[in-house]
């Protein structure tokens, strides 16, 4: 996870003296907002499917799905971020994130839009407000064709509630 953080920070380095690095992000939609997820941490994107509920777990953990014989937990990123509950539509997708430590985990998104290439110069760091009680899920904002894409901090998303 430290590595992940370091990589994210690397992406945010504004000093462009070294050759400009660029990373690929998958642009997803949650409600009206667009978010970017670093493609290196994505294992798979699958269509919405039947999620088996697991009792006695935090509400944002929607349950488990069967991904080619593997049991993968799925969480609602909306609930984790305090957004209104998910509405499953035809565009709803589950993005399977790779995590060495905790095993793969899926997050539910409203739509997967595109893959963009963002150079480090296009990313602006978001000041981290430690007084803010809500966990900061965004590490930076990328500018692409006039749109703003909030880059998700996968680290804080996949962390458990009280951690």
């Amino acid at each position: 996870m430290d590595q992940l953080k370091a990589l994210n920070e690397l992406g945010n380095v504004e000093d462009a003296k070294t050759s400009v690095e660029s990373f690929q992000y998958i642009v997803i939609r949650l409600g009206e907002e667009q978010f970017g997820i670093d493609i290196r941490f994505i294992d798979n994107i699958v269509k919405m499917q039947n999620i088996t509920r697991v009792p006695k777990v935090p509400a944002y953990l929607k349950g488990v799905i069967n991904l080619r014989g593997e049991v993968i937990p799925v969480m609602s990123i909306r609930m984790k971020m305090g957004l209104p509950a998910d509405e499953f539509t035809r565009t709803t997708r589950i993005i399977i994130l790779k995590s060495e430590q905790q095993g793969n985990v899926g997050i539910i998104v409203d739509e997967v839009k595109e893959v963009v290439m963002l150079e480090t110069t296009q990313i602006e760091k978001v000041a981290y407000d430690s007084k803010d009680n809500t966990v900061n899920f965004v590490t930076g904002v990328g500018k692409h064709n006039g749109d703003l894409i909030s880059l998700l901090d996968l680290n804080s998303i996949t962390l458990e509630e009280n951690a």
Partner: protein
Amino acid sequence: MDVSQYLEIFLDETKEHLQTLNTQILELESDPENMDTINEIFRAAHSLKGMAGTMGYKRMQNLTHDMENVFSEVRTGNIKVQPEMIDVLFKCLDALEEYNNNIQQTADEGTNDNEVLIKQLNDILNGAGGAPAAPQPEVKKASIEAAAESSSDEKWNDIALDHSQIRVLTEAKKMGKKVYGVNVVIQDSCILKAARAFLVFKAVEEKSEIIVSNPSAQDVEDERFDRDFTLIVVSDGTVDDIIKAAESVSEIAKVTGAELVLENTRNYHPIEESDRSVSDDKKTAVAESKPQAAAKTAEKKQTPGKPVVNRTVRVDIEKLDVLMNLVSELIIAKNSLVSASNQEREKNAGFNEQIEYLESVTTNLHESVMKVRMVPIESVVNKFPRMIRDLSKSLGKKMELYMTGEETELDRTVVDEIGDPLMHLLRNSADHGLESAEVRAQRGKPPVGTIFLNAYQDGNNVVIEVGDDGNGIDIEAVRNKGIERGVITPEQAANMTDKEVIDLLFLPSFSTAKKVTDVSGRGVGLDVVKSKIESLSGEVEIKTKLGEGSTWIIRLPLTLAIIQALMVVVGGEKYAISLGSIQTLEDISPSEIKLVQNKEVINLRGTVIPLIRLPKVLDIESTRSEDENLIVVIVKKGDKQAGLVIDELIGQQEIVIKSLGKYIKQCKFISGATILGDGEIALILDANALI
């Protein structure tokens, strides 16, 4: 030559041979005249020696060599088997095991020469009265008497040559070189023996090539020799040249030498003999030929590097063949499915047929793969008779171990883990369980205590019972101890059932042994036994009767990955309950439910069983109305029972257990998940956690 690649095989085979030796020597103790046993021991020791030699483990080789000498004397009838001898032999086996463990960890045998043991072995040999000419093992600290007694100067004939050495010598002869034996005696007054010997070595090496040195060059260098040492050399020149060279060193008393006739050397004959004698016995012949074949390829010994020894499963070839056949069938079935789907609708019947075929093949395939992982518990329990024998001696109690069902098979991972808990229970029985001889006599029990270990398969479980006919557990003593230790209050103690009191024994650091012995009573014990067995998804129970003995019953799942389960529906969701914990299924009318201490219970054939409403536990709405009859699954955990109320039954199914992952761990009573035929996931309910 690098022998490191053989290290795994060596370790495996050494373990096997040690086990054979252990068992056979035990047998020998009870039946000292049994020739078969003695032969078997001799063969095992011989193979062990050959293997150790090939691998370059000199110390191990030396020790086994001396053991072999003793066995060979026993075999020829020159020595009678005596209890002291058995003790020494067992100590030797322990030493060998230590070497083996060292080798496993560091690829080196360690530095313990076990000279005491070698001395004891030699004493046994020397004690063989009436056979003064009995071959003395000329290894390392060969006794002084032996050196003095040996009137012949041709000591080189006494050197035990191994196969590779014999081969080198034979080849040298073929190349027209001469093989000489040289014996060098250093003056008594000499102070720096090692230095002199070193000079002799140097001098001799200028004229010839030293093939064998006895004692070994290393020992000579370290001054671990008496007054003389013997060399076998290969040279182009005459023996006089070599003797002259050796004599040129000062403080040398005498140098003798002669051409060496291979056939006269000590080990040349016995090997051939033993080979011939076993040639009828196919099994042992194979066992023998292995190390020999290995020996032939070993030209020069080297200390192997540090290979990482993996855990291996030795698999019966037949099991693998079955597996292979099933895989081929699977491919055929798959191919026919492909072609059937190409022809499509017209032959729908054929399509279904192929699918059924495919299904049966995969089921069989799965079974045989599981079997590959299964090993008999024999490998673990075999060491117990020896352990009990040792305990019997050290505790001064007479006891006998009876074992049945050693052939019962369990998953390899389980077998690997089960050894320690079983050993602990057996030690417990020996130390605490069995009474002293006087008490036994008072109680009218036979003087020899009985300890038993029975293993058998029971459905999807393997049951291992360990017990004794000793004192049993003194429940009152445990109760008092519990109060004394502050684990329970006196009030609690009064209300506790015997069963609950016995469960106290499984608490960490709860030992009722009055004194701490070397065998048990150190406070680490039953709690470790219990946690180990539970980590294997098993359970332990105790049956005990004061004065009559106790039995520990260990129940282990046959495999960890696949279980038979009952599929049920709760609130529209599918769940699996392990069949192992289910006793019965009951249809209960709502009127039969009673309230006891505000908890719902039912009276089922005289037993009051608490009800657990699964929909409530699982936070889901039941699909059944209040006045309908309840479907209740009666589950048990040890002596405890509970009724799980479910909505619907689906049926029995074999399920593959999958982990829910580290992410979901809060849920205690969900032990995992399984994927159903339609790709859906069903959670597995852990009945043990619910009760």
